[in-house]
């Protein structure tokens, strides 16, 4: 979650390509090239481009994707088909940015709860052991004397 959300990164790349007077395909290709191997959306985009270039069905790639990713690929398909999609991309970018902000907010709210597990299972017992272990050991030694 440290970097940009993959669909937002892809969208920015395509918008930059359009502003530079390039085709949508150039932006998509650049996004696919620059993304890391761990980026799942990049592999979906690669498959989408591959299928589109060979006029193969690509809608099965939408399955399991989030609503924003599906919408983005649909708009890209319209753009690749020659339609003007600049305004749709602008609207979609606003939507995706809002969704990302909401996701960050939701995660920040849940963070204290999620951090409880390592805290309670490992770090709290470590503190207890550290503070009371030597103390108890010392006490037992004194009692035995």
């Amino acid at each position, binding site marked *: *979650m*440290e*970097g*940009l*959300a*993959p*669909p*937002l*990164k892809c969208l*920015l*790349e395509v918008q*930059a390509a359009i*502003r*530079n*007077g390039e085709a949508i395909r150039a932006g998509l290709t*650049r996004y696919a090239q*620059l993304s*890391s191997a761990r980026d799942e959306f990049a592999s979906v985009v690669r498959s989408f481009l591959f299928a589109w270039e060979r006029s193969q069905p690509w809608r099965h790639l939408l399955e399991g994707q*989030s609503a*924003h*990713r599906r919408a983005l690929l649909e708009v890209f398909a319209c753009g690749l088909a020659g339609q003007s999609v600049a305004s749709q991309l602008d609207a979609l970018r606003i939507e*995706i*940015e809002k*969704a*990302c*902000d909401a*996701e*960050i907010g939701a*995660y*920040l709210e849940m*963070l204290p709860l*999620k*951090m409880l*597990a*390592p*805290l309670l*299972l*490992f*770090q709290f*017992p*470590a*503190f207890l*052991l*550290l*503070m009371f*272990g*030597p*103390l108890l*050991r*010392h006490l037992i030694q004194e009692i035995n004397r």
Partner: protein
Amino acid sequence: MRIDPFVREFVDELALIDRHPHLAVRRLETFRDKIEIEESFRRRSGQVLARIRAQSSVMTGLYLAVSAFMIAKFGWSANAKLFAIATTSFGIGAIWLWCGGRNLKWKV
């Protein structure tokens, strides 16, 4: 040698600009805008990791301080085993926190 993705992108963009000199200014402006947007968003999304790291750092500082106090008070050699177990347990918790934070994935 592994090149940083941003450096690679930067060099690629400059190479593209060099190949299309008639679009140089527009391309540079677009690239600058893109970097600005990315940076602004990266700052916002970095809050999650920053909070995890801050909390983990505070806990580690506290743990080190308590360790130093206990070692000074009760001695190291007599309690070495206890300290080792406590430190291992604390370390596992800290690694869990850091790695868990790094493996977060976007759902959007």
